[in-house]
């Protein structure tokens, strides 16, 4: 695979934010399988999250966003091959020894899975499941573990007495709160939230988002939130990255990306969710023609060109790197920044 030239805009943007990144991902690539049947899922992603920062990653299913989340703690199946760097507090997760990796898991960075259904163990009480990482990483006594679980449950707005409940005795929203309490158990510096509100109804969704926001702000935790719902991300995060076919195609301040995306895919994604009080967005066609690309057979050039309403001939031939698109923004589209190359005609 031809290595995409690194966009200077992203690097500058990360540098501009100053503080040494809590999480810095450099040219991360994840491929499933090997040889002729290798399927690239993540194809060169650069991202940075600082303490207290909230970064959202948006994209449709199959774009590699969940692979990215699992790659951060090396939780992918053994068929996945990873390259690049994932620096957590300056230490590369990809080169860690197993013992060190286990120590970093949950204590350094934890994950809020989509907990509504299967991410909790059905046969253990939730108090025990919350206390488990505390016992493991802090070598706490069982009594201290129970006390910590009770404290965490109250932090997420559940009565401490619920520690004795089994997952099936809780509602979807309560289970998601339990997942959040569990993620906070060892005071991690980074929390990855993978579709934390999917499968919850809208009212509960808002509650969970406020809860995550509050806890992250109180404890100065870095947050990497992954969702297919751009509106949810724009509502919660400072910055937004849009992923398509294993790459970041747009990155910038959350509001700006949501309101006026530079990349046509970013625009399609934000148009997919109607805005309250904006009749135009409700009348405009919201869908995006075509299917997400098959990672095993990606289109040539810019992988988005077959579905792109404004594609040029050059898009079919040439890969489009991330370009600077205003202060702290970048987008991987030929129409950004530089003028359209001479002789190119809209298709």
């Amino acid at each position, binding site marked *: 695979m031809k290595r995409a030239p690194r966009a200077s805009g992203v690097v500058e943007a990360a540098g501009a934010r100053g503080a040494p990144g809590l999480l810095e991902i450099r040219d991360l690539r994840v491929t499933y399988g090997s040889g002729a049947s290798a399927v690239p899922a993540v194809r060169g992603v650069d991202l940075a999250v600082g303490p207290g920062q909230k970064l959202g990653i948006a994209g449709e299913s199959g774009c590699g966003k969940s692979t990215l989340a699992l790659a951060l703690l090396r939780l992918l199946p053994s068929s996945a091959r990873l390259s690049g760097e994932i620096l957590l507090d300056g230490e590369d997760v990809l080169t860690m020894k197993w013992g060190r990796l286990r120590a970093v*898991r949950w204590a350094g960075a934890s994950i809020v899975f989509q907990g509504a259904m299967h991410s*909790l163990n*059905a*046969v253990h009480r939730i108090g025990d499941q919350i206390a488990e990482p505390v016992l493991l990483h802090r070598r706490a006594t069982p009594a201290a573990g129970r006390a910590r679980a009770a404290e965490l449950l109250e932090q997420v707005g559940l009565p401490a007495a619920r520690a004795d409940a089994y997952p099936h005795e809780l509602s979807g929203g309560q289970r998601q709160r339990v997942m959040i309490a569990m993620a906070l158990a060892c005071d991690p510096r980074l929390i990855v939230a993978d579709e934390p509100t999917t499968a919850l109804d809208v009212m509960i969704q808002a509650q969970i988002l406020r809860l995550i926001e509050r806890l992250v702000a109180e404890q100065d935790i870095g947050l990497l939130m992954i969702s297919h719902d751009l509106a949810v991300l724009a509502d919660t995060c400072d910055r937004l990255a849009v992923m398509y076919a294993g790459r970041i195609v747009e990155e910038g301040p959350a509001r700006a990306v949501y309101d006026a995306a530079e990349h046509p895919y970013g625009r399609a994604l934000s148009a997919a969710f109607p805005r309250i009080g904006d009749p135009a967005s409700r009348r405009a066609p919201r869908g995006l023609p075509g299917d997400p690309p098959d990672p095993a057979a990606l289109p040539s050039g810019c992988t988005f060109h077959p579905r792109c309403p404004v594609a040029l001939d050059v898009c079919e031939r040439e890969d489009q790197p991330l370009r600077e698109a205003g202060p702290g923004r970048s987008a991987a589209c030929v129409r950004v920044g530089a003028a359209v190359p001479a002789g190119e005609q809209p298709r």
Partner: protein
Amino acid sequence: MSTASTPGAVRDAAGGPVKTGPSRSADRADPGPGTRTAYPLYVAGRLGGAAVSLLAVLVTSFFLFRIIPGDPVSTMTHGAPTSAAQLAALRKQFGLDLPLWQQFTDYCAKALTGDLGTSYQFHAPVGELIMTKLPATLLLTGVAVVIYSALGLWLGTRSAWRNGGLGDRLNTGVALTLWSVPSFWLGLLLIIVFSVGIGPVPGLFPTGGMESGDTTGFARILDVAHHLVLPVLTLVAVGYAQTLLVMRSSLLDEMGGDYLTTARAKGLRDASVRRRHAVPNALLPTVTMVFINLGHVAGGSILVETVFSWPGLGGLFYQGLSVPDLPLVQGLFLVFAGAMIVMNLLADLLYPLLDPRVGR
């Protein structure tokens, strides 16, 4: 790639190839308010079911053994000069001169009061005969069932966790091969190799029986253990594959579970993920299997007991069949089937206590 894995559907199907406990899928969703009080009702239902099964066994055992060819009276008097009048007197004594339906009602009425009748050949109450032989059988099959259930669970877990590897293929291959071997044939083979001895190999174990009869106290325990080795080995070799396969398949179904990713993300060692998270979930369908194994303690070793001249129920059953000693075989059949029914009932009653999703 996103959260596309929905192992629930697969996992629910894992009730077990043999027989499921109460359906797990039905209880997966949030339980209604009624489920906390559902357990007594559930127990009553299971008890009723077990009672019906026992009645069916009672009826079956009566008619099943009447189909066996052979006249008990002529077998018993074989070789002795008897007149037709004497034969008729014997028939009358055993109640065999009565019409079939009357024999049946007599048998049922007595069985329900706990009287299993009198053995034709031993002239002793069937209940007493069974009680004298029962301990030997319970010892043999009890030891074997505990060993092969534990072995099956352990190997099944290992096999599933390293699914598809050399160890897994070797493990399942060997287990399936042994499963297909007839137990009496394997028993005879073991007797030839380890009791009789081949070439330079001396006979290491006794050919049969439960004890030598010349020892007491601790030495006697060792002697019985010495006699136990070969029959237990035979039963274990032939029996452990079933538990292994059920445990393996139910653990494989759990291995796609998202909760295992959560457990790994917490920083648990692979062995802890398996022991604390995967196995407890996979055990649920396997528990039923283990109890079915336990149900075999009474009747599971007829062939092996015969091969090893073990003084247990199996040998007694064999003797009873050759006459046919109708009250004896009926009584034994009732005990064999009853043990299975009781163990199944226990499995059903235990299941909701192990799986918090099933109402209790």
